[in-house]
């Protein structure tokens, strides 16, 4: 059969070019302007870079970003891999539900994770209070602050990548390999070292790089609990707060460079992925272990420890302000925080803001992502590769980079150059969310369209359906699960965004995450917790309602 590249129909001729220009304007242009500003436009100079190189604190932040990320990878692997083995290879009561619960942090906004961790293990968290109560000390026994604290939170929120990748890798593993090794006389230890782990290598490399990239762009944890310890993402924001614009641009360029380097490695690793899956047989059967009760207990304990912080968040949301002082557990519980959030106009505003801004951004990102995918996959355009790369770029770069780049681009009025003053308006945050959502909706649309048999659209055409009718009656209905999944992940990411919002928000457009931060600053811990729970619930609901139809990944 001739496997001709299929492009049955004429496409709007200008569509690829218009889309490419739009995406370049949203994605590349701000980055380019940032680089130009770092180079001291209009007078070309490397002096800002020289400044950067001369300052030890910059080097420290850069190095901190890298080592924190590497240590996060190691810690996350140490938690995620054994957990994946436990849930994938052993059988015990509750395995299925616990296995899903453990992966829950992946859909929750990073800010919520940090908050939950603070309430449980922070200096005024339940654990610290309990220790103080036992030792009768008035001083908190520890401070959850600095690099160690960041690492803990990172490991807690990012082990999921290792967990999910390893489980997927194990599920794909052909039992015949293990049986062959056993038949050749290898013991369990040797099989693990010589067969299982080498076969899992592509999955592990993928998880490691994803964790590295996520950690590199992590902002919530270093900002909230880093103390005086700086990484690049916080360094950039503080430079901006100090009005050191040029330096923040240089820092942004440096962070972007590291992230792009990481992306190159990630792509190389992805190319090697699937080697283990190439030969498909039955996956190894789950074993009922000899110490089954012990394993089950370990599974339950692990899951409880991992979910405890979120339970704590819920508890704190019911603690009225000023009622919890030195007791280990809160003495009074009431709905006052929740009533406050839902009855006071100003407290309701961040929720409304977050919802509408995320909805608008998601809708726009879905439209752009689908249009680009449709043109690339179904149309015979030379711009197909360019369109796909443009959509992927925001995924590779830390949110801080984009926030700074968009701030730089849209604080100048130069309509002929595609620049407008959007900073301080209600438009900037939805625009920023849109840019950050593009890879999520785009990836879903590309994947969905590639899996859709082109013959379905051809059949519709041969039955006389016009382009619009084909799109509305055949293509879109069949892509709905994939698009809904991409949109749900994009919506969740925008809803819980903190890193972009803190650079670009105005008082009137403040989203939930910013309101959480100010609640904490005003020691309205309970209200902050209520917002956190709300964010977690909205995220989980969006994910469960729409997000389960496709395998999109998300990043903090």
């Amino acid at each position, binding site marked *: *059969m*001739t496997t*001709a*590249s*299929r492009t*049955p*129909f*004429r496409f709007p001729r200008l569509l690829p070019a218009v889309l490419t220009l739009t995406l370049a304007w949203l994605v590349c242009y701000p980055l380019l302007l940032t680089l130009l500003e770092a180079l001291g436009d209009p007078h070309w100079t490397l002096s800002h870079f020289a400044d950067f190189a001369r300052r030890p604190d910059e080097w420290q932040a850069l190095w901190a970003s890298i080592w924190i990320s590497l240590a996060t990878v190691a810690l996350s692997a140490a938690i995620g891999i054994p957990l994946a083995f436990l849930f994938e290879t052993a059988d015990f009561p509750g395995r299925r539900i616990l296995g899903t619960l453990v992966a829950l942090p992946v859909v929750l906004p990073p800010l919520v994770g940090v908050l939950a961790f603070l309430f449980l293990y922070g200096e005024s968290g339940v654990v610290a209070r309990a220790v103080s109560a036992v030792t009768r000390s008035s001083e908190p026994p520890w401070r959850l602050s600095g690099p160690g604290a960041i690492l803990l939170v990172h490991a807690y929120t990012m082990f999921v990548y290792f967990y999910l990748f390893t489980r997927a890798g194990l599920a794909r593993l052909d039992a015949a390999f293990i049986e062959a090794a056993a038949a050749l006389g290898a013991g369990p230890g040797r099989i693990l070292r010589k067969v299982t782990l080498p076969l899992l290598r592509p999955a592990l490399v993928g998880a490691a790089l994803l964790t590295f990239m996520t950690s590199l762009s992590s902002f919530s944890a270093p900002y909230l609990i880093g103390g005086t310890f700086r990484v690049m993402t916080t360094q950039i924001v503080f430079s901006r707060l100090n009005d050191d614009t040029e330096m923040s641009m240089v820092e942004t360029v440096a962070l972007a460079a590291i992230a792009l380097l990481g992306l190159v490695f990630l792509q190389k690793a992805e190319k090697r992925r699937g080697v283990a899956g190439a030969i498909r047989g039955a996956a190894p059967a789950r074993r009922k272990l000899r110490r089954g009760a012990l394993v089950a207990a370990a599974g339950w304990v692990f899951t409880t420890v991992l979910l405890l912080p979120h339970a704590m968040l819920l508890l704190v949301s019911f603690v009225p302000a000023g009622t919890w002082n030195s007791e280990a557990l809160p003495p009074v519980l009431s709905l006052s925080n929740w009533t406050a959030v839902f009855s006071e106009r100003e407290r309701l505003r961040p929720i409304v803001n977050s919802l509408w801004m995320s909805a608008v951004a998601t809708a726009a990102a879905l439209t752009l992502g689908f249009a680009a995918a449709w043109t690339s996959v179904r149309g015979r355009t030379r711009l197909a590769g360019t369109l796909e790369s443009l959509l992927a770029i925001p995924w590779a770069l830390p949110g801080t980079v984009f926030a700074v780049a968009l701030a730089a681009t849209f604080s100048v009025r130069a309509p002929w150059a595609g620049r407008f003053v959007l900073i301080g308006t209600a438009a900037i945050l939805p625009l920023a969310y849109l840019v950050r959502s593009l890879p999520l909706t785009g990836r879903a649309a590309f994947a969905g369209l590639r899996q859709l*048999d082109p*013959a*379905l659209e*051809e*059949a*519709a*055409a*041969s*039955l*006389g*359906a*016009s*382009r619009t009718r*084909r799109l509305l*009656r*055949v293509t879109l*209905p*069949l892509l709905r699960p994939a698009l809904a999944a991409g949109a749900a992940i994009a919506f969740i990411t925008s809803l819980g965004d903190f890193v972009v919002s803190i650079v670009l928000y105005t008082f009137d457009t403040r989203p939930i995450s910013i309101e959480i931060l100010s609640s904490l600053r005003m020691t309205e811990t309970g209200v902050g917790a209520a917002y956190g729970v709300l964010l977690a619930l909205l995220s989980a609901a969006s994910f469960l309602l729409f997000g389960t139809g496709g395998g999109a990944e998300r990043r903090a």
Partner: protein
Amino acid sequence: MTAGGYLELESLEKHFGTLAVTRGFSLSVRKSEIVALLGPSGSGKTTVLRLVAGFETPDAGRIRVDGEDVTHMPPERRRFGMVFQHYALFPHMTVGENVAFGMPAESLTRPQIRERVAETLESVDLSGFEPRRVTELSGGQQQRVAVARALAPRPRVLLFDEPLSNLDPTLRERTRRELKRVLRRIGITTLFVTHEQEEAFDLGDRVAVLSAGRLEQVGTPEELYARPATRFVAGFVGRSSVIPAVWRGGRAEPAPGVAWDAQAGSDGAAFSDGDPVDLLVRPEDLALERSGAAAGSPLSDGSLPGAVLERRFAGHAAFYTVALDGAGEAEALGAPGLAQPGDRIGIRPAPGAARPRAYPRQGGKAAP
């Protein structure tokens, strides 16, 4: 080609990059005629079908239907029905919605559409299947829904891409018979692609044989079998053996001293003395002659000596594969008890049968 066909393909050319997949392809299909496009994988038959359907645009050439030039008309305006290899039924619609999809909603009322859906489903023996989901249907039923969906808008031409390849062998024959009946009854002009000769011969009024993007020959199954126009058709259609020979004095010599009456394979082809040729001959056109003696012993004049390599019993007769003493193998049909593997045997053109067809030797090597 006769002018004035209903569907006319004129000198179609299609390249994908530097690869020419269709070269100077012309074909004329009469109204109500069923024509099969037969060829091996990569012969360009699917591309021709996609050009006709409008999913691809030819680089050169014309496609006309009923006198109307549709070469550059988008597929949705051609009014051609198509049945896809994997049926391409819309999985999110019921059987009824699939069949109704192509009906002109603007010129038909809802009851009319419903009536026509029922009629069309009845014509493929699926009455009452409207509310079923297409995913619940068996392969054979899906195929019939696909046919019904393509027929429902009353298309001018019906196109099939490997209509039966997705069915298992037992179902395939039955479905083929049903399909033939439906097409005959409706009398619709049909073009279908297949790589199976049996399917092409059974369904097609005429068969167009393609190789490497070119039309090799078009004709009735009988014509293709009895008078293959090219060496490719002779080899591709039906079974035949290739026996190397040298042309001498108007006859072919497969071995020194053995001369057979042969005919030039292609119309108008002529050979000179000493030209190396390949003889293509069908199993039933060869006669077998037992020989008791050792290798090289004389057989009667005109027999080519060899030994039986393999015998395949086929009921009333058996196929004998003969390893020729000179070079190569030949397959001949004979009485079931004629010989056993290892026996010495001679082959010669059967008296009264079609003469071996001679084609220029491929690669042009000198004869032994």
